[in-house]
């Protein structure tokens, strides 16, 4: 079956089996940031953006992105690097396997929420599991990252 959609801003036309999950399809397109960490749509490792909304690519059929825009971490390298540096500075990562899905959801949150409280941050990210850490480093990194973004906005307004 034919689909036509945008993967990381590039238009793609393809022939696929209709029951292919988006996750497997994207990995087949060399988007190895998209990972399967569970079998129950619970871990958030496979998070990608469809029309700017974070979704689980393990539970989404590839046919359903026909005509839509899909962004994986491969398409957000600069932003991912920016936040990734905060993660690294806080020593937040251990094995790093869950990071791509986590970063995708943090970037979606940064776009969606204005000045979120700690509770709102936790709630937004509750669907991203990490079995190495206790999330403390990640939360520190997010707080510093959001402050940094705010300062950039304020700096832009001042100049």
């Amino acid at each position, binding site marked *: 079956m034919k689909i036509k959609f945008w993967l990381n801003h590039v238009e793609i036309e393809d022939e696929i089996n209709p029951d292919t999950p988006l996750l497997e399809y994207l990995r087949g397109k060399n988007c190895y940031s998209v990972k399967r960490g569970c079998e129950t749509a619970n871990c*958030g490792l496979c998070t990608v953006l469809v029309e700017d909304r974070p979704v689980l690519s393990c539970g989404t059929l590839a046919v359903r992105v026909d005509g839509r825009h899909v962004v994986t971490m491969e398409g957000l390298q600069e932003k991912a690097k920016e936040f990734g540096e905060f993660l690294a500075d806080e020593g937040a990562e251990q094995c790093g396997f869950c990071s791509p899905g986590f970063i995708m*959801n943090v970037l979606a949150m940064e776009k969606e929420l204005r000045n979120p409280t700690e509770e709102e941050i936790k709630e937004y990210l509750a*669907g991203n599991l990490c079995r190495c850490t206790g999330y403390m480093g990640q939360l520190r990194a997010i707080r510093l990252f959001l402050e940094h973004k705010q300062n950039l906005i304020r700096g832009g307004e001042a100049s």
Partner: protein
Amino acid sequence: MFRFKNYVKVQELKEAYELNQKKSNVVLGGTLWLKMEDINKQTAIDLSGLGLDKITETSEEFIIGCMVSLRDLELHPSLNESFQNGFKEAVRHIVGVQFRNCATVGGSIFARFGFSDVLTLFLALDSYVELYKGGRVSMKEFVKMPRNNDILVSVIVKKDNRKVCYLSERRSSTDFPLISCAAACHNGEWTVSVGARPARAMLFSDDQKRLSEIPGNEEIDLFIQDMKESVTFGTNMRGSEEYRRHLAGVLIRRGIQTILKDRTGGVLG
């Protein structure tokens, strides 16, 4: 794995209904539950091209298309304002934002899952399902109907000024609820729904008239006693029958008290 051979994005509801008369075909919701099943289907029927992903508000009701996501329910300002943020509370514990962006109202309600937070809340409201063949059916009836081959088009909620409070208990955050409850008060009449019993949500009305419009603790005790005797609970890996019955009593009491607190401006007798 969930497998199928053909995929049809239907152009009209009639087409979906006709395809769905075959047992070997299946209607797609958010596919989060379907993907967990080990089944082979012939044709997957997709309703996502019919514009049913919108919430429409009229002066009397909200019409929620079957393809509206749980996240849309959570974020809809007017829907939440009308029901004391009940929708936000009922879905915000479900897995995560990414999951709720995928899961659909139609999928949750049509399946009438025994763990459904969503069904528990709708049942406590004056709500209806719009079925392609069956027409408008009250949630009260629909929750008892066996699954058939109809198509759920939308869910309707009446704006009747009812006050509602939704509460659930989970063994860990983002897990399935081990018990879910919604208390509602409309024109001085109280009803509660209890879900994750762990069976389909069930409505319990105050037929014995235990509760006055602003009930005191003794009235609430009697009402909860009645509820515990008539609602059936069961045991599974998340909790025992006794534990669920006890928690349902606690949550319903809190729900009633929250509604009373909001009404009396925080002053309780």
